[in-house]
């Protein structure tokens, strides 16, 4: 791993932590404020790509594990990982990787803005929602004995908010791609 990749990874972990400290984002048409940190998976995958993004999340989880309050609201410690929602946290790593993988394949620096935004949106939906929900649900279903379908349906409450986040993350990722492109390109 190059020193630059190591630094980009660590800086993105630091950004994710700061996104948990700054005031939540309020949108005129949504009643609940959005915590910027909850878009971290989508942002990391779309901006620094699959490998570095997933490593940034592994580093974040390591910090949670050793007892640093790095998650929004000052949460941290092994207690956060030990709960039935631990599968979602593992899902962050894989979800970031998949978001990055999709983005690296379909978004090109030469494309028009609308196509890039659409590409990032799709990548965020697949990785940031699909993969995270899937892993979280499997873990939940195994640990509670609840059926998979029942556990999956519990996610439905969060779906509208997360689709909105995918949209915001896609816009931000496209702005970063224009200003300072870092996303590796895959064919």
């Amino acid at each position: 791993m190059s020193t630059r990749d190591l630094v980009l990874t660590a800086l993105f972990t630091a950004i994710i932590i700061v996104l948990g400290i700054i005031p939540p984002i309020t949108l005129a048409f949504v009643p609940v404020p959005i915590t910027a940190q909850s878009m971290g998976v989508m942002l990391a995958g779309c901006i620094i790509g699959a490998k570095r993004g997933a490593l940034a999340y592994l580093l974040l989880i390591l910090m949670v594990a050793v007892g640093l309050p790095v998650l929004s609201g000052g949460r941290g410690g092994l207690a956060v990982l030990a709960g039935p929602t631990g599968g979602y946290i593992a899902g962050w790593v894989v979800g970031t990787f998949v978001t990055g993988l999709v983005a690296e394949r379909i978004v090109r620096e030469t494309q028009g803005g609308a196509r890039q935004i659409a590409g990032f949106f799709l990548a965020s939906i697949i990785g940031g929602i699909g993969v995270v929900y899937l892993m979280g649900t499997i873990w939940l279903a195994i640990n509670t004995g609840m059926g998979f379908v029942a556990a999956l349906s519990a996610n439905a409450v969060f779906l509208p908010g997360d689709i909105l986040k995918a949209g915001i993350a896609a816009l931000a990722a496209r702005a970063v791609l224009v200003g300072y492109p870092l996303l590796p390109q895959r064919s």
Partner: protein
Amino acid sequence: MLKSLHVEGTTLLHRLSVRTKLAVLFAASLAVFLTVDPFVLGGAVLLSALVFATVGVSFSQAVSRLAWPLVSIGLVAGATAFFETPVHGLVVLFRFATLILLAATVTASTEVGDFMEEITRLMMPFERLGLVNAADIGLALGLVLRFVPEIATRYESLREAHAARGLPVRPLKMLAPLIILTLKDADMIAMAIDARGLRRH
């Protein structure tokens, strides 16, 4: 900023090695799935609550640390009770409450530095296989702790710059500039690490 969740103390739990505490936590995470008796599991919750109480976490600290995990298991247990049986819901609640209390105990009684040392040791076999570099993990962690306050300050100055220009302060608008400004430093930081020879072993 980023003050560790460790609580100063000299109790028995503070003196136990990190490895022992993690091993007990891991064993407990398997043991709670060996029984479905709500009375046994309820006893386990009480026992771990007692253990947690010995490490010197104040009541308000305990509430702020445990509230979120407990609410989340409450919701999950509620859903389980609804889809399965109430007893089933109670079993889920007790199992995870036990684990969360024990996990919070380990966190409160262990210093970040000791934890990192144990993790570095656990990584050694992987390092020998060439999969990871334990020193890099420490370096990356140091970088994060070093740059979190820097980035938070940068967010503040971006916010002020927006306000000074009479623009509405929208966190959404500042997301991309914040990320760009931060990641642009990566090249210089990486060059400095190489110039100082910090990754030679």
